[in-house]
Structures are given as structure tokens and as C-alpha cells.
């Protein structure tokens, strides 16, 4: 009981110690504390602890504290402004990106749509109507141009398509066969090349002119050549103008390529026979060399007689050269076959032959 009482008393004193040390106690309380402390070692220790706690020195804050705080806050404020700017900018960037992506998709779709819908475009390469592969395979005409038998450098860029390259490759090969036949039978014309694809066979069709049809038929037996169509033509009986033309042809008309002229603008100049007669071979060679560059069919240009060259037939398939050559063509018709004809009409056969792809 005595200890409890002492403990309670000590607690009271401890509660007064702060005030005692601060000097804020009333005189009576101060006296009570002092008398207790004189007797109680425990409370004296408590007082020393309070005193030590109160004696904690206060130091001034180092100047760097304030300086650092303000520097950091100023930097943060700037960063904050930058962050806001960045946010706004990124918002714009995002919108630009979205709109840009949408525009790209629309443009891409339109371009692809045009590509798909347009009949004139195939994988971005222009194929002229003449050379487009028709869908009907019963009788595919892949080339009606006579010049397909020959390399047509003038039109090469235009014809450089996958289909055209394939055609040209085949045509060159088959043309070789056809020309051999022409040479053997003196057939002087190759009008067109067609590729005919049927379920059972595929063959190339040529129109040629043959003077002796029976001999030709015999020759092509047991070969991959067969006659598709034939037609007899009597050239000289066509008209009076032809007969007249023959005479004119006999009167020294010929055409010569002016090599110094522009390729498409080649002027065909009329020359007198004597000049031609002086150097027939060279003139014939020049004409033969020049015409293919115009898209003309050189095969029909070969001098009909090396010793008596008076005419050359010029066939030009390229319509761009037609205005220039048309006159020449008509002239050449007038003198067609002149060397071999003394009088009257010339009879020959227009024959379309087929050369099978697989013999």
C-alpha cells in the first residue's frame, strides 16, 4: 500500500516536472516538487531525463536548404510547363497520326480499286488492247501484227509485257519455221500470226502466199504444218489501175529510205530508175534495213531480182508510219510482182497454214 501511494505521488510529480523545469509552476507546486525530488531518487532521474530532453540544442538551418528547395521548385515548375506542352503536342501528334493513317488507307484503297476495276491495267503495266489476252481460248489471237515475226525495236518498250515477251519468243521460233517454208516455196507474204488454242491442240497460224499450192501441200506432208484456209488470188486482174501501175513500175519507180531522216519521219523519196540501176543491190539493202525499224515487214521487201531491181514492196504495220508510207504502199502495189510478170494477171494462193505446237 505504501509503495502504491509512493508510485501515485511520483506520477503526480513527474507530471509537474515539465512545468517545474520551465519555471511555470506555482510556488506551492514548486516546493512540493523540490521536497519530493530531495527524497526520491527515481524522480530525480526522471527530472534529469526531462532536462536532457529539453536541452536539445537548436541549430540554424543551413542556407543551402532554402536555396535547394527553391531551385528544385523552379525546375519542377518549368518541367511542369514543358510536360503540359508535351501533352498538348502529343495529343496533336496522335491526332495527326490518326488522320494521316486514315488518309493513307483511303488513298491506298482508291489506288487498289482503280487497279482492280480498270480493264486497261494489269499489275500496273499498260497493255494495249491489241495485245491483251482475250479470255476466249477457242481461238486466241495473240498477235495480228505482221511485224510480230520480226523484232520491232521501235515498239519494244510498249510491248514489254509478260504476255508480249512470251508471244515474241514463240513467234520468233515459229516464224523461223514459216520463213523456211516461204523460202522453199517462194511464198512472199506472211500476213499474220495467230495462236490458236483448242482443247486438243495448240498451233500458230500464218497467212502466206504460195504460187504452187499443190507442191506446197506435198511438202508439208508429215510435218507439223497444215493448211487452215486457202484462197486463190488473181492479182493482176484486180483493176485497170494495177495494169497501169505495172507500166509505171516498169517506168523506174521505187522508194528509198532516207537514212538521215528522223526514224518515224522517214521521207520516202522518189528517185529515177537510172540511179537505182547503177547500184541496185545497195539500194535494196538500204530499204530492207530501214523498213523494219519502221515496223515494216522486211520479209516482203527482199529485192525481187538482184540483177533487175525496179521495185520493192513495203508493208508497214505501224500505224504511225502509215501516213508516210501509204503512198509508197500503193505504189508498191502497182508494181507488185512486176519482174515475174510479163503480161496479164499473176495467180497465187493466199494460204493460212497452221503449225502445231507439238509435232
Amino acid at each position, binding site marked *: 500500500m505504501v509503495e502504491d501511494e509512493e508510485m501515485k505521488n511520483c506520477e503526480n510529480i513527474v507530471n509537474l516536472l515539465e512545468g517545474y523545469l520551465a519555471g511555470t509552476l506555482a510556488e506551492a507546486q514548486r516546493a512540493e516538487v523540490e521536497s519530493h525530488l530531495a527524497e526520491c531518487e527515481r524522480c530525480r532521474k526522471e527530472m534529469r*531525463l526531462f532536462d*536532457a530532453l529539453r536541452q536539445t540544442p*537548436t541549430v540554424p538551418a543551413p542556407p543551402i*536548404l532554402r536555396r535547394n528547395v527553391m531551385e*528544385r521548385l523552379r525546375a519542377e515548375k518549368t518541367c511542369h510547363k514543358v510536360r503540359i506542352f508535351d501533352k498538348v503536342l502529343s495529343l496533336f501528334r496522335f491526332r495527326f497520326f490518326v488522320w494521316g493513317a486514315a488518309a493513307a488507307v483511303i488513298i491506298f484503297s482508291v489506288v487498289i480499286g482503280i487497279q482492280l476495276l480498270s480493264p486497261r491495267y494489269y499489275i500496273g503495266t499498260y497493255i494495249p488492247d491489241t495485245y491483251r489476252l482475250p479470255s476466249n481460248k477457242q481461238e486466241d489471237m495473240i498477235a495480228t501484227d505482221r511485224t510480230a515475226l520480226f523484232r520491232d525495236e521501235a515498239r519494244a518498250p510498249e510491248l514489254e509485257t509478260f504476255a508480249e515477251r512470251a508471244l515474241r519468243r514463240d513467234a520468233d521460233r515459229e516464224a523461223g519455221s514459216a520463213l523456211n517454208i516461204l523460202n522453199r516455196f517462194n511464198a512472199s507474204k506472211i500476213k499474220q500470226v495467230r495462236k490458236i488454242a483448242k482443247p486438243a491442240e495448240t498451233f500458230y497460224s500464218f497467212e502466206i502466199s504460195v504460187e504452187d499450192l499443190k507442191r506446197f501441200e506435198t511438202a508439208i506432208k508429215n510435218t507439223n504444218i497444215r493448211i487452215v484456209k486457202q484462197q486463190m488470188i488473181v492479182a493482176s486482174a484486180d483493176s485497170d489501175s494495177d495494169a497501169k501501175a505495172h507500166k509505171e513500175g516498169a517506168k523506174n519507180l521505187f522508194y528509198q529510205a532516207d537514212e538521215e531522216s528522223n526514224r518515224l519521219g522517214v521521207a520516202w523519196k522518189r528517185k529515177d530508175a537510172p540511179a537505182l540501176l547503177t547500184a541496185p543491190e545497195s539500194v535494196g539493202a538500204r530499204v530492207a534495213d530501214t523498213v523494219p525499224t519502221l515496223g515494216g515487214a522486211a520479209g516482203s521487201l527482199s529485192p525481187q531480182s538482184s540483177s533487175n531491181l525496179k521495185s520493192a514492196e513495203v508493208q508497214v504495220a505501224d500505224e504511225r508510219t502509215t501516213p508516210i508510207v501509204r503512198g509508197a504502199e500503193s505504189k508498191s502495189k502497182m508494181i507488185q510482182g512486176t519482174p515475174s510478170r510479163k503480161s496479164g494477171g499473176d495467180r497465187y494462193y493466199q494460204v493460212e497454214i497452221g503449225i502445231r505446237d507439238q509435232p
Partner: protein
Amino acid sequence: MGSETKHQTGTESALIERSRQGDLEAFDSLVQIHQDRIYNLSLRLLGNEEDALDLAQEAFCAAFRKMGSFRGEAAFFSWLYRITVNLAKNFWRKSAQRVSDRSVPLEPANSENEREYAPPIPNGAPNPRQQAAGHELRAILDEKMNELSFDFRTILTLRFMEGLSYEEIAETLGCNTGTVKSRLNRARNELRDLMEPYL
């Protein structure tokens, strides 16, 4: 504004209001007014100048960022104290971690040198060098304060070193005065037990 004038002077209230609007110059003045108290509180809570400087800086910066949330219900310095104490807890944890990391022995304690660097025995006699310094009790108190839990050290600091009333401590710590009194009592008893041999 009315509640602000209850706790702050007119000048301080104006500075607070301007700071809330983002006025750095005004806040600079507030820092100037309170820097000593915040720095000393930091020093007492963490026990070393380097950490105290960092803590005080963090506390002021955090205060500026939070100025918008200061409504004036409490005194500005209580509000600053509260921020400081809350931040100090994290600092103290990191600091304790550093001390703990440093105290990991690299070799087994089998050499003569190991005894020289061994941590002081809590109930051992006072260091003679400390006694000779004249402020031995104060030094020992600092050492023993560091052995207390953060909450006890904080409440003893606020009460006896900073001289805050129970109400102000309650405001600072965000608790009621009853909690303050009981915690203060327990903290003091624990400190007294630690200091007993030196008193």
C-alpha cells in the same frame, strides 16, 4: 481565410494564399520562416545532418506541391510538421536499412579487430570519451533516442524538443490527444529504462 487567420499571422496567411496560387516568391518567404524548425525536427527525427537536410528539402517541396490541399484547418507549421513526419518515416526506414546493411559482418567474428568494431553493448557502462566531453548525458540521450521506435522517438521529439502541446501533436500526427498522451507515456518509460544507467 477566416480559419487561416486563426492559426497564422496576417502576413503568413497572405504568403500561404499566394503560395497556393503557385507564387514561388511567396513560398520562398514561408520557407525562410519555417526552415529552422523543420530542419531541427528533421535532425532530431533522423539523427544526422545529411539525411536531415534531404528530409527538410523534400518536406518543403512536397508542401509546395500540396499547397492546394492546405485548407487552414490546422496551423501551417503543424501541417508542415505532419508532412515532415510522414516523409521522415520513409527516410528512417531507408536509413535503418543502410545501417543494417553496413552492420552485416564480412567475416566471422574471430579476430582481435572484430571486438574493436563490435557495436556497443546497450546496458554497458558509458563511453569514457563521452563522459569526458561534458555533454555526455546529451550524447547518450541522442544515442538512446535512436534505439526507440520511430513513433516513440517522434512523439518525444514533438513534445519535449519541439515543445508542442498535446493538441498540436494530435494535429501533426493525425490522432486524438488520448492517443498522444498514452503513447507519450510509453515512449518516456521506454526511454527512461534505456537511460537508467546514465541518469
